């Protein structure tokens, strides 16, 4: 098939995927504040309680966060709170 001057329009948001490098893990978890984000599914807390206990037993600093419902994205305020206070975050799923 050949054609000259055939132009289509971009159906995307044109936020062309810029490859983002993953952040390097902190060299020493002992100095990091770890956030545990509960997504509010059944048994999310149970899972995160176990995790918090295990991390606490290793002497690590753990902070707890929760979004109101797993059916919607976390509110900006929750995300901002995590970013401001934590170095690492674990998002808890319970399925």
């Amino acid at each position: 098939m050949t054609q000259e001057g055939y132009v289509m329009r971009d159906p995307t948001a044109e936020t062309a995927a810029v490859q983002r490098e993953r952040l390097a893990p902190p060299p020493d978890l002992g100095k990091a504040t770890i956030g545990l984000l509960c997504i509010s599914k059944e048994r999310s807390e149970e899972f995160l309680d176990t995790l918090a206990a295990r991390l606490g037993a290793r002497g690590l600093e753990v902070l707890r966060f929760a979004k109101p419902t797993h059916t919607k994205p976390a509110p900006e305020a929750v995300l901002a709170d995590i970013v401001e206070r934590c170095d690492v975050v674990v998002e808890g799923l319970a399925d």
Partner: protein
Amino acid sequence: MAAAEFLVLLKRECETCRMVGPVLAGLKARARLTLWSQDDPAFPEQTGGALDDRSLEQSWKHKVEIVPTLIRLEGGREVARTEGWNRADWARLTGIENIGKDLPPSRPGCGSITMDPGMPERLALKFGDLKLASRPIEVGEMDDPHEVAYDRGWSDGLPVIPPTDLRIARMLAGTTRKPDEVIGLIPPNLAECTIEKVAVNAVMAGCRPEYFPVVLAAIEAALKPEFSMHGLLATLWFSGPVVIVNGPVTKRIGMNWAGNALGQGNRANATIGRALQLVIRNVGGGRPQEIDRSILGNPGKYTFCFAEDEADPDWVPLNVARGHARGTSTVTLFHGDGVHGVCDQRSRDPESLSRSLALTLWSVCHPKLAQWSHAILVLSPDHYDIYKQAGWGRGEIEAGLWQALKRPGRDLVRGAGGVAEGIDPSHANELVDKFHPGGLLVVRAGASGGLFSAVIGGWTAQRRNSEVQVVSQEIGT
């Protein structure tokens, strides 16, 4: 009259234009007259031809719909126009009392070439009335546009119609809304989406322009916070948006509510649902195995859209039951996971049929889980007839099903029947409702000839009844 000048736009193909040739010659001898011919600059011979408007630029600029069009200009500005031949009008505009006295008093003109199908959109693009803002993607001389669309990740897996400027312009002609209007932020990336961007995706989905207002309404419904489109896209569950269309628009655009209404074969059904999905994919960035975390998905995530059968005046259509005025065109969006058939060829009374349908309805999500997911019951004509003959309408059917959908908790608790899954043991001594109030939608569709109906299961997040809701939206223009 000395200050006036005249403009006439015409075409040789038009019999009325040919008829007024001698009149134009007479007018040219008495006044400043400019003629533009849409198809042949040698025409009319009586005036020695006309200026060449085969590009249609002048006809478009002057918004000509009928030829001949006579325009009176004063100081270079239009003050009056008349279309076709009408002696009284031409006399009034030109000030020549006995103009065309040998011609019949009036004769209608012909359609301007600018009004040919698809031409207004072509000319709007050509002469700058419509400027598209979406990034142009040039297709190489040796490339296939369909393959380019695949390579760029624009497709749901099926071929898409290449979104060229002309196709987009035609789609935009299907709405009165401006191309640069922002319809909302599309999840999951919360990307700003314009009417034009929806049009690009509607073209790719295969929509006709007259479907476009339905697509726009479906997107507006999906963006209502209570619908939770982000969660529906991201869920592990099977579900995706199911679009149910009600009202006069369904007949106008040729939707299917009869045989195979939930299946393939109808362009409007197929492409409206697909356009919604393509907007989520392309604008929102919602792709399978990325933010779309569905464990299995379902074929309805290509497209799932159908119309309700509103032919029976006794039936209360879904949108009316949801509070819209009868005769309103609406979309209703549900979080659906797939179609499950129900065969009941023995029930002849509404009570038996309700209990029978309830057995299958109990199976959505899991037969031992209650209020974990909503459902749609699609009543076929033959099952509906059993209710109708008993004098049951929507209200009685919904009430009958509600009663039939109660089960003893002891049969449902975890461990009962040797099945670990189930409801919390604290409900063992209660009669348990399968659905939240309002969690069962009853709609009518399908062909007669089989005592079958369909259950469309919902989304497990509907157990959070206040956070995840079925939504409706009126269809605009």
